[in-house]
């Protein structure tokens, strides 16, 4: 039988590919795929990245496994230094953090995200969890990578967010430039269908998973978008990347982000 890997693994590889070597990279909490991706990048193409581990604020840890919560001490194993809360936040808001992963229950074409509520506040239809540190950090961190594993049902990529928790490229008060923000905003949006970039501050479809059609993406997406001239399939992961993922995440917590149908998608190497 040939070597196969799952969508969850390829998805993590796509997140990891957005990490540059020698950058300062951070994710928040409740982000298993981003957590695994950061460690994958650090163990492969970005060994000199400064990795700040989510809710632990541990610097360059080497955990033996990824637990189902972001706030477990197993995540700081191997780190010789952990930041104080304020140290991590100051670093982010003064612009020293190069890259953050950010998810959204709703995401619009500017890359604004909503994790606060579906339907109007103060008594929404669904009160979501909330934004953590996003509404300040999204203004200042140099580069944001957005992701969602809920593109297909058609309710995530929306024309307009019911509520803007974190900043994309432009909101009702104007662009980042108008607002005087130093961060560069979203550079990529990765979904279980494909990858968008933001060449002019608007989402543009850049690549697809090989089992996904342009039409499926169009049907699932609530906003208009351009397609990249060289739109095509994503580059396949290397076997070593897949192996690293399985080593990093033996509990497969990354899979908790996906609906069961998506987890059935597997690919030959």
């Amino acid at each position, binding site marked *: 039988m040939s070597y196969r890997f799952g969508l969850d693994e390829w998805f993590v590889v796509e997140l990891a590919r957005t990490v540059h070597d020698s950058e300062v990279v951070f994710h928040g*909490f409740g982000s298993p795929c981003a957590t695994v991706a950061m460690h994958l990048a650090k163990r492969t193409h970005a060994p000199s990245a400064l990795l700040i581990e989510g809710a632990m604020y541990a610097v360059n840890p080497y955990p033996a496994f990824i637990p189902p919560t*972001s*706030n477990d001490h197993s995540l700081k194993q191997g780190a010789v230094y*952990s930041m104080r809360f*304020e140290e991590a936040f100051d670093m982010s808001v003064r612009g020293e953090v190069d890259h953050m992963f950010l998810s959204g229950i709703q995401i619009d074409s500017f890359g604004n995200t909503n994790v*606060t509520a579906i339907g109007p*506040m103060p008594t929404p239809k669904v009160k979501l969890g*909330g934004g953590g540190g996003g*509404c*300040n950090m999204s203004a200042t961190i140099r580069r944001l990578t957005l992701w969602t594993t809920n593109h297909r049902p058609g309710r995530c990529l929306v024309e307009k967010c019911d509520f803007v928790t974190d900043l994309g490229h432009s909101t009702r008060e104007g662009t980042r430039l108008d607002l005087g923000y130093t961060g560069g905003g979203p550079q990529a949006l990765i979904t279980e269908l494909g990858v968008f970039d933001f060449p002019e501050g608007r989402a543009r479809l850049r690549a697809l998973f090989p089992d996904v059609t342009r039409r499926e993406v169009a049907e699932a997406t609530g906003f208009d978008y351009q397609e990249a001239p060289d739109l095509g399939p994503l580059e396949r992961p290397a076997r070593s990347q897949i192996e690293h993922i399985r080593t990093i995440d033996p509990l497969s917590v990354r899979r908790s982000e996906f609906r069961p149908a998506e987890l059935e998608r597997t690919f030959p190497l």
Partner: protein
Amino acid sequence: MGIHLGSDKPSDLQTAVAMIPPGSMVALGGGLSARLPMALVREVIRAGIGDLHVVGSAHSIDVDMLAAAGLISVCEESYVGYEQDLGLAPAFRRAAQKGDLEARESCCDTILTQLRAAEMGLSFLPVHGVKGTDIESLHPEYGRITCPFTDHEYVVVPPLSPDVALIHAPIGDRQGNLHIEQPYVLDERFAVASAQVIATVDRIVSTREVVEAGIVIPFYRVSALVEVPFGAHPTSCYPGYAYDRNHLSAWVTAAGTPEGAGDYLRNYVTGVDEAGYRRRIGPERLEHLTGYQASEETWMEIFR
């Protein structure tokens, strides 16, 4: 914002939570699945202290359970839920959606900035973001200011001085010197910015032991200190014990309906004291959570 030099600090849960008048602004220490002040939360529910304005960063069962008990009027946290693993907080969500509580959602960094304003004795501080988001619309108390040097317009926030902070630590001495392990989350900031600090510790130990581990919150910040073994359960309190994912999961399932939440509260909170709570959880289960140190494999298996 309180200096507590007395040698008569309350040392039992009932007396300690009696220091919290209804309507208080209550800061919750710890975060997510770690070091939440659960014994104090349960005691507040037993005492039925309501109309609370809770503040904190990213929290879970503490807020959810207080919401289930109907004790929260304003929730000013940056996140309430169980992350990807167990999802949204059922009781908190229900209360927010019905308007039983005001979800005055904030941001970790904004809360930090407001606590720093209190700590620094300043009547305002600027934040970096917020402007342009809808979070600002939930906070009429925020303002705007123009920097006199750069003309940049900032959102400014007032100081946040909670009436009381509830903090759980693994160890402390009788005077109230507390050691906690990183991440401290906002506990240091809460301890300074709050008028009262009610602390529980898993173990009261000698001053020497706290000094060797490192005093993170000094005695003069602490107004009450109670020893409650497993006082953070079902969340973790390292180096003592890992979080009880199974129990959190059982709560989340139960809290899916008001009736289920009510049953849980009767079984695990109002119908028992803390010794009774530990008996309900069972000594084998608690022992299991302390066993994480045996090996990475053991640690991992606790979460499977």
